[in-house]
């Protein structure tokens, strides 16, 4: 039975909605579409966010609890799994839509809170502390004394264009995507425009690649289109290399069909009949969503052979990467897809003329492709109204670290970093002091307090030596040691260096050694050792400049960036590590010394029993003491002491 219904709906959507030449749909169709969209629900609808961040926070258990609650209470309601709203701190988020009323948004509704929350909403006894806001449109009754979502700084200061669909619909449902106007743009494009016209439109919109390089997308497409060949490829780079960024996968999870539509349009623009989505490994949820979405699109005839009788063929496959950071680089990525070691090649020839299997290939990042359907639907002029002179549109960031409100955000180009840190994130958690904003991951730089007023713009940032990166923003407060942070990135790059060229393979190793020497525990402390460490930093600067100039690919060329940026902005921290043997954030294990305050210690023996190297001695109910020579500085005693008797220096 279900199969028949699906078939009917499929015919209805593909023939009546998608093939309809004008935008005006008959009343009956409009009604059916509104039903699919749940515009005016007749039963309560409970939206539970179900992106990776929500699942980690326990949204699946919440959904099960909500289902059980509805059954127990005999309430006929609908549970819809949506994706992240953005603020990861609020996960799992639950949004309740009662018929005729505005939607209510609740935060941190874990399994145990479901019953109380739903009880409260259904019996008009609002659970205040978990309530975030209400969100509504005309035709719904507003709730009294509840702020609107637009009044909350986290949302107000964003411009959600790519994310506009996220959180209000079921991303796994192709029906709903079509009912919300999806795939119509693709069909119009393949009917009304030639390949070149699409490239022209995208070029005119000023869309630039969002993966960091900022190359004009339309121009790249034209290069590929103009390379004579019998076949071309489009690759969607969803291998978010930055270890601290989640933006691409979150948006892909949130709206997989828009990505597929973007890939369809881009493939048509360059005349490619094969597209590959190169997805990061170890992300089971985005992979499952994408597989499901592709299957649905194939079923509806949106991808496949002779798409809706237009004569255009397209097949999209998903390839999971096998885990190598360097495969984010274009030529290495192509190598990996061809079944080789993912090692970068010399450019030129560029992939646009000589790419996958030697054919012209365009590689676009997820966010770039997500913008494409919007530009084609609303026109390049609309896109040009957003942003700065050189950079149009919006930019997604996965904001992480020590901010008060973190998560997936989208801001207009030209927004200052201060707006993000002080407005959207609303400052730093636990009232600590801001230290730096890290942008661009292991090949990025640090933005200091005085640089926070810089605008997000490809050219402006490049002029300041700041790489935009793919979308990772990490807020760092005073509890993070910059030397240790740089070492973390260097360790990462050293591990990930492919080993093809010497500057990168050896340079990262030497830089890591020197950085580790700076934070290592001193065995014999003499003036010579201090001098060695000081010399080390000078050598670091030389290695950094050699790597920058001579490495083969972007990975090696940008690997010293975090170090260079940290040294120029936080020089005093490096000096403290070298000369005073002190880490102001108390992070570097080798430099920490612990002591026990005899007045506060009650002799409870907790620290001694937890110490992994048995460096704490004493008699029960008498003050204990730490043996410095044995101590490895792990800090477990400091964390477990209930009487704050352990002090660190």
């Amino acid at each position: 039975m279900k199969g028949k219904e699906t078939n009917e709906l499929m015919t209805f959507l593909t023939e009546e909605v998608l093939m309809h030449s004008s935008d005006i749909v008959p009343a009956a169709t409009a009604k059916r579409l509104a039903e699919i969209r749940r515009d005016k629900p007749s039963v309560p609808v409970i939206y539970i966010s179900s992106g990776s961040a929500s699942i980690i926070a326990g949204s699946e258990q919440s959904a099960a609890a909500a289902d059980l609650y509805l059954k127990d209470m005999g309430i006929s309601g609908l549970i819809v799994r949506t994706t992240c709203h953005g603020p990861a701190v609020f996960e799992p988020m639950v949004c309740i839509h009662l018929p005729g009323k505005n939607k209510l948004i609740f935060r941190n509704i874990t399994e145990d809170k479901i019953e109380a929350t739903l009880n409260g909403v259904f019996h008009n006894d609002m659970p205040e502390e978990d309530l975030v806001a209400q969100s509504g449109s005309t035709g719904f009754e507003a709730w009294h004394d509840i702020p609107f979502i637009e009044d909350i700084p986290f949302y107000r200061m964003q411009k959600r264009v790519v994310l506009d669909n996220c959180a209000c619909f079921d991303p796994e449902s192709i029906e709903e995507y079509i009912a919300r106007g999806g795939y119509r743009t693709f069909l119009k494009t393949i009917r009304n425009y030639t390949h070149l016209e699409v490239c022209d439109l995208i070029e005119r919109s000023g869309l630039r690649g969002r993966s960091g390089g900022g190359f004009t997308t339309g121009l790249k497409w034209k290069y590929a289109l103009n390379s004579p060949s019998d076949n071309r490829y489009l690759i969607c780079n969803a291998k978010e290399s930055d270890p601290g960024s989640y933006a691409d996968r979150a948006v892909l999870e949130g709206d997989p069909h828009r990505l597929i539509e973007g890939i369809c349009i881009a493939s048509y623009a360059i005349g490619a009949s094969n597209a590959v989505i190169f997805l990061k490994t170890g992300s089971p949820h985005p992979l499952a969503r994408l597989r499901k979405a592709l299957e649905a699109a194939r079923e509806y005839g949106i991808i496949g052979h002779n798409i809706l009788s237009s004569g255009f063929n397209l097949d999209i496959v998903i390839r999971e990467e096998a885990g190598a950071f360097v495969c984010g680089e274009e030529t290495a990525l192509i190598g990996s897809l061809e079944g080789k070691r993912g090692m970068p090649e010399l450019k030129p020839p560029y992939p646009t003329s000589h790419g996958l299997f030697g054919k012209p290939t365009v590689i676009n990042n997820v966010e770039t492709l997500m913008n494409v359907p919007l530009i084609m639907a609303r026109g390049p002029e609309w896109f040009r109204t957003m942003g700065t002179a050189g950079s149009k549109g919006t930019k997604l960031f996965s904001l992480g670290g020590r901010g008060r409100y973190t998560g997936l955000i989208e801001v207009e180009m030209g927004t200052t970093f201060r707006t993000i840190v002080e407005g959207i994130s609303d400052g730093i958690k636990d009232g600590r002091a801001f230290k730096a904003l890290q942008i661009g991951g292991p090949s990025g730089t640090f933005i200091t307090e005085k640089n926070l007023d810089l605008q997000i713009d490809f050219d402006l940032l490049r002029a300041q030596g700041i790489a935009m990166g793919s979308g990772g923003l990490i807020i760092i407060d005073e509890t993070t040691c910059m030397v240790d942070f740089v070492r973390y990135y260097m360790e990462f790059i050293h591990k990930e260096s492919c080993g093809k060229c010497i500057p990168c393979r050896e340079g990262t190793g030497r830089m890591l050694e020197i950085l580790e020497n700076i934070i290592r525990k001193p065995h014999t402390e003499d003036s010579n050792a201090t001098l060695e460490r000081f010399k080390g930093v000078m050598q670091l600067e030389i290695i950094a400049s050699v790597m920058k100039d001579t490495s083969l690919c972007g990975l090696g060329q940008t690997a010293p960036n975090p170090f260079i940026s940290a040294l120029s902005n936080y020089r005093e921290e490096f000096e403290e590590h070298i000369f005073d043997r002190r880490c102001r954030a108390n992070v570097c294990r080798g430099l920490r010394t612990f002591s026990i305050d005899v007045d506060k210690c009650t002799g409870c023996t907790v620290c001694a029993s937890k110490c992994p190297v048995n460096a704490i001695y004493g008699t029960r109910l008498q003050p204990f003491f730490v043996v410095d020579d044995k101590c490895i500085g792990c800090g477990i005693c400091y964390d477990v002491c209930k009487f704050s008797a352990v002090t660190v220096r």
Partner: protein
Amino acid sequence: MRKIEDILKQYRAGSHENLIPILQDVQAEEGYLSENAIVQIGRFLEMSTTKIYGLATFYDRFRFTPSGRVHMRICDGTTCFINGSEAVIRAIRDNLGIEQGQTTRDGRFSYELTSCMGGCNEGPVVCVGEKFHVHVKAEEVPEMITKLKALADLK
């Protein structure tokens, strides 16, 4: 034995570009790449096993020893790092006495480091099967491992 043949059937013989997906499928099925599997794949793709090993060792995700009954994935992303994942990783490593990619002698545990899993606000994150352990602290690791031991013995 059957299973590898079933996986290979989905691909074209001799198609070198399918090597990585084949290895991924085999690993998903068997949990690791055995010598036997690599020889079989080599015969199917008409490729020398040395070349296959050369490729497989280049990528992080392939392992050549069976994974433990409890396999932990520890987030090594930047946000988890800021929230103290290094101490957690060190504690797990010291507690189990194995490095990434190895398996404990009793076959109970193995672990791998992954980049950001998306739970940045909940960091440090340790994922065991479908279950996520969030806000893990180094001093909680021994207790967590004791609990997981019981889980491993059930399997």
